[in-house]
């Protein structure tokens, strides 16, 4: 076991990756589902082991092919990647378990093995981004995960999924190419691709124009992938038309991982050397974050398609995370990172509840779910509780991160009041849009949902697991909090 | 002297490109693509000697091959389209 321990960073990627071709070869959809779930759980276990290792030693390094660091590709796991790894692998496992009964409705049985293979590849790609410490390697794995998620979204039964995917593909490729340009410029000036090595060597050339432009390109490219406010246009439709469990998976992971890379580049690579970087970053990040929060929440309030409503809410939540980062302080970053974790929990639970609803309701529009709470009490209860977490009611995970966010903003001086006001207003908006659903489901007369039945157990279990996790981490926020605060310290270069 | 040939090839490529841009028919463009392909093969062969690396002739062969397949694919494309037009007359009018 100890022998394997050292290989954990590599295995984190290799396990799902290796399972993908196998899942494709298995012709029977049940078998390939089993394999995919097993691989995903295995990846989750590895993520937990890595987290423990991070608590023990502060981080792990791994040399691919045993070549020394700046020359070969190096993997590195620290607090920040561990946090995200937990989110990604956990969400994937939950969604896959839920998918066993949900996916049959949306994808033909014959095509499912391919679907699961794509799922595993998406997972492998996301893990790959998180564990690597090489700028170009990030690009490669970003493309794996991106291509795989296009496939996953295109699995949606509605034909509008296709156009949504195409837009996502175009945007995603532009983002990736921007990133590639940025990396190229950095490489041009420093001659290396290893992140740590770049940090070490960028010092001499940091004042030069190419580095500045590189910072711009990388930030914009990743912002596109992370759906940061004005560049979010691909997100609502992509989330809306994807198969339900895919939305669970992607909403929790893909944009967050892009954010992770964005933060990493900006804080570790550029911040120490670019003059006035903090200020520039804040100037760009804060207004966009505020706009994202307000616009996202506002649109969500008036949206009657439930999935799209939650997708817009995601835009707003990404705004919270950027807001935390835009404060450029340890407290702010901690809050932002913590919100990555907690928002993933809340959104996963909400989208899972929607997946449950979809079992009985063909169109997930607010008009169509009148009185459904009587027929599907467990599902709606889960939805309400997860909604509480999204709003940020005390006792839930959502509260913790919002609390930290508010304290962090108060520290940031005169601007703080405004920011807090925005946070509060948007939380109220969240109350409104969650309430609309609740009102409709509980207090409206049952119309066309007479035949509705409670969702199958295989779907309810993961949903409730996610809901309970929301409360667990609301009451005992220890692990994610510790991870995010040490990650924030790491990003700002302070010894914790 | 390799230079002279190279220049001739480059100029001809430009001429062929001009043909591709002018058209007028799609076949002219395919012809231009084919010409540029052949010129590229020649260019590569000449250049690999100019650079003193004759082992790069592999590239020239690969280009020749790809070019050939490309033109045949285009031909097949035309055939398919002709058939299409025959089968449904009201397809995309001009």
């Amino acid at each position: 076991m100890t022998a394997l321990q050292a290989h954990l960073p590599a295995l984190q990627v290799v396990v799902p990756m290796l399972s993908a071709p196998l899942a494709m070869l298995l012709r029977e959809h049940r078998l390939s589902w089993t394999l995919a779930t097993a691989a995903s759980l295995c990846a989750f276990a590895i993520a937990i082991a890595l987290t423990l290792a991070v608590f023990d030693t502060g981080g792990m390094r791994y040399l691919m092919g045993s070549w020394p660091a700046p020359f070969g590709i190096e993997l590195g796991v620290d607090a920040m990647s561990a946090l995200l790894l937990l989110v990604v692998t956990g969400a994937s496992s939950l969604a896959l378990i839920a998918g066993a009964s949900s996916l049959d409705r949306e994808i033909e049985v014959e095509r499912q093995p391919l679907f699961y293979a794509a799922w595993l590849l998406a997972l492998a790609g996301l893990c790959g981004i998180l564990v690597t410490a090489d700028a170009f390697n990030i690009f490669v794995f970003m493309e794996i995960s991106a291509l795989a998620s296009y496939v996953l979204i295109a699995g949606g039964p509605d034909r509008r999924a296709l156009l949504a995917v195409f837009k996502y593909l175009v945007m995603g490729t532009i983002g990736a190419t921007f990133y590639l340009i940025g990396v190229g410029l950095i490489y041009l000036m420093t001659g290396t691709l290893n992140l740590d090595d770049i940090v070490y060597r960028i010092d001499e050339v940091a004042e030069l124009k190419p580095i500045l432009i590189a910072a711009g390109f990388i930030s914009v490219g990743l912002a596109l992938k992370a759906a940061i406010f004005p560049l979010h246009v691909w997100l609502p439709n992509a989330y809306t038309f994807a198969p339900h469990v895919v939305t669970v998976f992607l909403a929790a992971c893909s944009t967050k991982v892009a954010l992770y890379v964005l933060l990493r580049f900006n804080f570790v690579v550029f911040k120490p050397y670019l003059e006035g970087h903090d200020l520039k970053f804040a100037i760009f990040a804060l207004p966009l974050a505020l706009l994202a929060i307000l616009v996202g929440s506002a649109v969500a309030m008036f949206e009657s398609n439930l999935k799209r409503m939650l997708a817009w809410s995601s835009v707003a939540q990404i705004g919270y995370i950027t807001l935390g980062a835009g404060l450029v302080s340890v407290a702010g970053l901690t809050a932002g990172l913590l919100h990555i974790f907690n928002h993933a929990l809340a959104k996963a639970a909400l989208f899972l509840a929607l997946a449950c609803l979809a079992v009985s309701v063909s169109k997930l529009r607010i008009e169509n779910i009148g009185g459904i709470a009587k027929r599907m009490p467990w599902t709606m209860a889960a939805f309400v509780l997860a909604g509480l977490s999204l709003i940020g009611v005390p006792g839930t995970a959502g509260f913790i991160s919002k609390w930290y966010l508010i304290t962090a903003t108060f520290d940031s001086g005169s601007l703080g009041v405004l920011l807090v006001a925005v946070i509060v207003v948007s939380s109220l908006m969240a109350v409104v849009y969650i309430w609309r659903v609740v009102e409709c489901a509980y207090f409206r007369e049952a119309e066309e949902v007479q035949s509705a039945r409670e969702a199958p157990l295989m779907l309810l279990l993961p949903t409730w697991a996610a809901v309970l996790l929301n409360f667990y981490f609301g009451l005992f926020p220890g692990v994610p909090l510790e991870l995010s605060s040490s990650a924030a310290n790491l990003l700002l270069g302070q010894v914790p | 002297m390799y230079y002279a040939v190279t220049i001739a090839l480059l100029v001809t490529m430009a001429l062929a490109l001009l043909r591709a841009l002018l058209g007028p028919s799609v076949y002219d463009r395919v012809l231009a693509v084919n010409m540029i392909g052949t010129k590229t093969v020649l260019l590569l062969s000449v250049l690999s000697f100019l650079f003193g690396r004759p082992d790069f002739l592999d590239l020239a062969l690969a280009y020749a091959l790809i070019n050939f397949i490309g033109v045949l694919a285009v031909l097949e494309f035309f055939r398919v389209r002709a058939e299409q037009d025959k089968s449904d007359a009201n397809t995309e009018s001009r």
Partner: protein
Amino acid sequence: MNFLGIYYYWVFAILLMVGFYAVIAKLNLIKKLIGLSLFQAAVFLLYITVGKVEGGTAPIFASAAGERLFSNPLPQVLILTAIVVGISTTALGLGIIVRIKEEYGTIEEQEIQEIDRQ
């Protein structure tokens, strides 16, 4: 000499512009995809340009090459990978386009959106 060298960078910039413009401004989906490949091709050009060493030769040891100066192999490796990524994206995009055409009967973005609105 210096001007000619800079020329490479500028061509990269203009190609980037042309491709990017096609992606954003064109409505035909296939055209968008073609624009996307142009856009990526520009980046390939940047990398390879960066890897060139004056008076160098391709980084392959061979008897004919002798002990000459070699160009930088790393950008070439990166671009090999990037080209492959590019074609993969293109293939997937084309697959989606074919499906769109089957479902909607058109590959013009505007027309598709009109159909959806109905």
